[in-house]
């Protein structure tokens, strides 16, 4: 066992979102009294940095430490975050929006998805709480992020996934030495099992008993977007939804930067994207119901195939309240979306990114986004992890002998 270089890292106290009871920093994400989710309690009078101070700081999620539930020096995963944000005019033109940017978490370090952000925060909370084992229930990307960051920190990890995930996600997890457990059933079965696992063992299960800390990491996507756009907020942001946490935290993140007086412009309209074959949150928006009706997922977008989204109601409210909306797209449109992104920007995203691109197309079709909008697309995962989804679609490339005339013939034929 490695002993960590324990710096002075502390986790914030928590407060119940339902009954307002307060708790010292703890390995539980639910209220003892009412079972409702807890959230970190930030000191209202804490000093916030200026734009100039922020710009002097490290280029990682820890630049925004005052808005994260960890105090003191982070002990691990110090360089997570600060993925590229760049304008993509060819994609904007093809989509029919005014301007478009990609926030490219497909190249997030170390594990190639935005889940690196949430895990970095959860891991530091685990350190602060003195936990010695990490765990998670995952649709794939979280598995990769926990396995990678736990390995580097020298902590053992227990990772639970649906039995039949894409090869890249399985291998990318096992290779880090994680204890990887494949559970018969879909993610909602894995999720339920992990709630019981978290109860039974003293592990830090990042999206179960460390969830109050973990979720806050997603806000850094909003902070970075604002920072990288020179403190000007976009009109709209599109992001994929599984449990519904990311879109909610994006909204909170932008809101916190507005309250801090750091940014120009209004709260962006937030748009959530789902696969039609697993779209419980889009269903909520479209039916106007007040409770999630769970669905059995059956889509190639495995990473966001959650039929029983814990933050579904909150997410639907946030989307609607921001002036945004949601859209669900077919598996075929997802593949087309992956291809469109790659062929106009060079970014190869996984199925969740295909959902985001295709949903943006759908939202333009519905007139909810258009030529007057400046839109940021959150590309949250990497295409090399879900090769299975697109390999058939790309077809065979020609094979030639090493002879120039064969290439001449080929070029002439195109």
């Amino acid at each position, binding site marked *: 066992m490695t002993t960590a270089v324990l710096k002075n890292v502390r986790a914030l106290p928590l407060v119940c979102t*339902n009954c307002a009871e307060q708790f010292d920093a703890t390995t*539980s*994400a*639910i209220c*003892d009294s*009412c*079972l*409702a*989710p807890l959230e970190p309690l930030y000191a209202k009078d804490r000093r916030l940095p200026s734009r100039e101070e922020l710009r002097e700081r490290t280029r990682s999620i820890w630049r925004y430490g005052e808005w994260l539930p960890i105090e003191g020096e982070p002990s691990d995963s110090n360089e997570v975050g600060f993925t590229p944000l760049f304008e993509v005019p060819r994609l904007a033109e093809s989509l029919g929006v005014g301007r478009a940017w990609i926030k490219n978490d497909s190249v997030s370090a170390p594990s190639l998805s935005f*889940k690196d952000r949430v895990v970095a925060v959860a891991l530091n909370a685990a350190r602060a709480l003195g936990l010695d084992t990490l765990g*998670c*229930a*995952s*649709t794939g*990307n*979280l*598995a990769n992020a926990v396995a990678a960051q736990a390995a580097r920190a020298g902590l053992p990890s227990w990772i639970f996934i649906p039995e039949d995930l894409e090869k890249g996600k399985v291998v990318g997890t096992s290779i880090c030495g994680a204890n990887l457990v494949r559970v018969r*059933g879909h*993610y*909602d*079965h894995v*999720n*339920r099992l*992990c*709630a*019981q696992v978290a*109860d039974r063992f003293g592990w830090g299960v990042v*999206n*179960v008993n460390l*969830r109050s800390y*973990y*979720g806050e990491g997603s806000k850094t996507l909003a902070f970075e977007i604002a920072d990288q756009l020179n403190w000007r907020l976009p009109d709209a942001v599109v992001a994929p939804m*599984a*449990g*519904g*946490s990311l879109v909610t935290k994006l909204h909170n993140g932008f809101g916190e930067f507005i309250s801090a007086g750091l940014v120009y412009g209004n709260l962006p309209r937030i748009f959530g994207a789902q696969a039609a074959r697993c779209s419980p949150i889009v269903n909520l928006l479209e039916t106007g119901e007040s*409770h*999630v*009706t*769970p669905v*059995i997922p059956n889509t190639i977008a495995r990473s*966001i195939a*959650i039929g*029983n*989204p*814990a*933050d579904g*109601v909150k997410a639907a409210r946030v989307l609607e309240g921001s002036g945004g909306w949601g859209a669900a797209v077919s598996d075929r449109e997802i593949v087309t979306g992956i291809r469109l992104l790659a062929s106009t920007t060079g970014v190869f995203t996984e199925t969740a990114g295909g959902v985001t691109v295709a949903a943006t197309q759908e939202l333009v079709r519905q007139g909810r986004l258009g030529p007057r909008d400046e839109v940021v697309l959150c590309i949250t995962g990497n295409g090399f992890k879900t090769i299975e989804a697109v390999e058939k679609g790309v077809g065979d490339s020609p094979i030639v002998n090493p002879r120039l005339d064969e290439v001449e013939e080929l070029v002439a034929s195109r």
Partner: protein
Amino acid sequence: MSIKVSLPGVLAKLTDGQNTLDADGSTVAQVVSDLAARYPGLGPRLQNADGEPYEFVTIYLNEEDIRLAGGFEAAVSAGDELTVVPAVAGG
């Protein structure tokens, strides 16, 4: 006594330290009422004042979410298991 009910650890303080209980009823709602009658502290944790389930508490009947089987009205029979878990995030 025919339905087995598993509770999350934080609720055990309301049930004399027991994580699993046996209960009676032919629907989930009846099982919940039976438990509420025997453990008065537990009732309000499983259903709100209108007798409805909470958004942040998920109940499974054997392997499936009860919301896929009629919610509190879902039928249960001897040997079935109900598992109560707090709703948790995606991954």
